[in-house]
């Protein structure tokens, strides 16, 4: 029965892709939004149902036991991601209607490839084995490449090159061996090496050696950045790691755990400091994303040491990934609105902001406070969970506390800079003539929904 609904999702996604060719704008958007909504509801249904297992055996002609595409709905880790991706896709779609209102023709790629990438995300979230995970991971990489180079200028092609290089090469060199070796009857390498290889291979999480692709890919239009960097790509990376720990349940030693912790902590600090010195708003958001992703991966470092912690650590990681998604997508939407309306690209340009932008700045303030981790926001709650996870290991992982607090302080600084320029400097320095922007209901609705969901 469930396979029918899964087929329904696939069918709906292709329908949305095909909707790109409908000439009438309003009809296209209404149909698409309805379909996206139904997909989100189906994903929600799966996550509630949570019991049956489906195995789609596409490739069972040769690799009987292992090399099959196996989709399962009983992984609670994955269903979180499916719900997150599909529901935020709905909001992004609504936002993109407002964002691309003037040039619908240019946005064809967006409407064509976003459904495919979300389909890949849903595939990742329901993956029943590492082979399936790998296939959908790669599909996601290649279906988002056209989105990164959407503007089709030289800068975006260069960014696309970096994007492909840094995502595909490590996944082939590190991820694929793990997939192959996981199926061996007599294991060739230990769980520790496998885990480290896997985390190095999933460069979508933007951990330290390979994270230039994320900042370079900011050349894309805002809805693409929002979807890529808040929902689809980076979250696919983070959830791939969660799913790996959920499926394989590797037993890692203390040394490996320390290595992973060090990797995450160094990424947090590095990205935070880079964000402080960046001036382009999108770059600041990108570096903030890198830093927050590393925080979300951090609980995985202790998961293998103590089995009792496994489900706590997973839920802490998932919680942080989700709260970050909601906060970051709101930040991107607002940054996109500022750019679209006032041509604001760098923080110094925010001085040009007018009163009509004040609603946006308040939304920005709320989203930023969630990401910083203020109490009574989802971001604060998820950070609290992660912190409490490490209480069991106070002496060994004392650095974690310092780094988390330090990163919060850094984010106070870099978000505070934007808000300062937005609220105070804009009022003081404004000299030009005031022009009122056309009020957009879609933008308003999207921002309000996100703000409500920020509150814990």
């Amino acid at each position, binding site marked *: 029965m469930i396979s029918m609904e899964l087929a329904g999702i696939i069918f709906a996604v292709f329908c949305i892709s095909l909707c790109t060719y409908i000439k009438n704008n309003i009809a296209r958007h209404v149909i698409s939004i309805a379909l996206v909504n139904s997909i989100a509801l189906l994903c929600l249904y799966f996550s509630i149902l949570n019991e049956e297992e489906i195995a789609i055996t*596409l*490739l069972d*002609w*040769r*690799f009987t036991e292992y090399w099959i595409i196996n989709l399962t709905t009983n992984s609670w880790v994955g269903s979180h991601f499916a719900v997150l991706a599909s529901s935020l896709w709905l909001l992004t779609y609504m936002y993109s209607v407002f964002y691309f209102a003037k040039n619908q023709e240019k946005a064809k790629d967006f409407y064509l490839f976003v459904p495919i990438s979300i389909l890949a995300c849903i595939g990742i979230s329901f993956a029943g084995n590492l082979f399936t995970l790998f296939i959908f991971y*790669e599909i996601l990489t290649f279906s988002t490449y056209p989105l990164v180079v959407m503007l089709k200028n030289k800068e975006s092609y260069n960014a696309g090159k970096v994007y492909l290089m840094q995502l*595909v090469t490590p996944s082939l060199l590190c991820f694929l*061996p793990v997939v*192959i*070796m996981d199926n061996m009857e007599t294991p060739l390498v230990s769980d520790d090496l496998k885990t480290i290889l896997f985390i190095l291979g999933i460069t979508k999480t933007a951990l330290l050696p390979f994270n230039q692709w994320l900042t370079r890919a900011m050349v894309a239009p805002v809805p693409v950045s929002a979807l890529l960097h808040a929902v689809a790509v980076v979250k696919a990376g983070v959830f791939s790691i969660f799913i790996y720990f959920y499926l394989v349940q590797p037993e890692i030693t203390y040394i490996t755990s320390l290595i992973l912790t060090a990797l995450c902590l160094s990424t947090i600090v590095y990205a935070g400091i880079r964000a402080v010195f960046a001036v382009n708003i999108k770059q600041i958001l990108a570096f903030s994303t890198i830093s927050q992703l590393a925080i979300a991966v951090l609980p995985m470092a202790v998961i293998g040491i103590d089995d009792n912690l496994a489900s706590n650590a997973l839920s802490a990681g998932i919680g942080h990934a989700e709260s970050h998604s909601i906060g970051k997508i709101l930040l991107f939407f607002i940054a996109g609105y500022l750019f679209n309306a006032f041509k604001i690209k760098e923080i110094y340009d925010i001085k040009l902001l007018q009163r009509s932008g004040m609603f946006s700045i308040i939304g920005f303030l709320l989203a930023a406070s969630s990401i910083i981790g203020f109490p009574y926001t989802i971001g604060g709650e998820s950070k609290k969970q992660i912190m409490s996870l490490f209480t069991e290991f106070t002496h060994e992982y004392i650095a974690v506390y310092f780094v988390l607090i330090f990163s919060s302080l850094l984010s106070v600084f870099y978000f505070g800079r934007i808000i300062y320029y937005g609220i105070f400097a804009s009022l003081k320095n404004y000299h030009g003539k005031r022009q009122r922007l056309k009020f957009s209901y879609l933008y308003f609705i999207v921002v309000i929904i996100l703000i409500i969901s920020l509150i814990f």
Partner: protein
Amino acid sequence: MTPNFSIFLVALPLVFSSLSVILRKKRFVSLLGIILSLICLLLIGKNYNLVDGNNVFAINLGGFVGQTGIEYSLDIFSLSMLGLVAMQFFIFQIFAFNKLPVEYNEKQYYKISCILFLLLASFSGLAFSSDIFNIYVMLEVSSLCLYCLTAVSNKNKSLIAAFRYLIIGTVAATLYLFGVGMVYLATGSLNLYHIANSYNNSYSQVFHCGIALMIIGLFIKAAIFPFSNWLKEVYANTSETLMSFIAATSSKLILAILAKIIFYCYYPFSNGYFSYVLLFFAILTIIYGTFFAIKETQYTAILAYSSIANNGFILALIAMLSPYGFFAAVFYIFSHSLAKSGLFMVKTVPKDKISNAMRILFLASLAGVPLTSGFIAKILLLDSLVVGYGLEIFIIMLIFSAVSLIYVFKLYQGRAFSDGNDHQHSTISSNFALLCLGFLNIVFGLVGGVLIADLESFIGSFL
């Protein structure tokens, strides 16, 4: 229908090549090609049901049995190779239906077509001949056709390239012939299936030497490392339309013959080092091909070097001397052949939606992106390598298959930014051929394994 009918796979192209000289009209000749390839596909499809499992059907030409006469044998391996050739020829004929007559003088087109039919005859003969001297004859016929096709291409250095190709090809054929002579001296047999049985220990050195000479001859033809210089020149100086057929079949068939000689007659007498000798050359070939493909800037030259590197991968799989490796090698041959012919085809059509989409698909298949046949070939490659050789070789291969992404990306960008050949016009037939090939590139990954699944047990019966 008896398997004996399959001799028409060689005979019909010979007849049709003379027919094309008689008919001469462009339309007739083009139609002849399509009819011929359809008949070949039909014959192969009819015979496919017969050879399931380990069945081998021997076809004795002229009624001479066994060791004295020429014998063609139909088994799952030779049939799959025949299928590859016929399928590629069919797609090529559709693709070239309007294109090739325009590229050459329309009145001279029948000559090209005549040579192409001869080439098909010799390739079919190569695919299922089990007589090593007959294989030599077919090698020579196919090589002569290839020299001609290189020489008549409208490129600057075609004649020089053809001449060099002639020299190196003759050297290779001569080495192979010496080898055949020595093997015949040592065993008194020319039949692939009988050589192992009639092996005489007192002539062992002659036998080993003969096999070595044959293998070296085939190495030269398949452009394995120390002898791989010629390939680039030929690829770059032959018409791309013709290359879409030649590149997809010629060196792959040579590797198939190499596999036949190694598995059918040499395996029982090889010692433990033999596998590693082959592997050594394979790795050198991979390094050479990949390195120069990255360094090169010209489209066809990159394709040539990538062919060399992929031949190295196939040789590494053959060198494993195991059924699983052999199965993976044949699968790899198929998937690479499908991708390579497509890449040559898209070079000759203007940039439109279909050609762009297909180009990306072929490149994805060459790189091994999921959902293409190339991905499953790569998975099979890596999986069998880690089973066969262990971790070290696996890591080397993994690195080189990842490095190959660089030149794939170069191919993609080179096409994306150069305006290239907009004066050529696409036709319905060429678009249809491209779509066919793209379809096969995806579908073969899903069903190809089922089609050639018997190969493993078939080769296992020799080991």
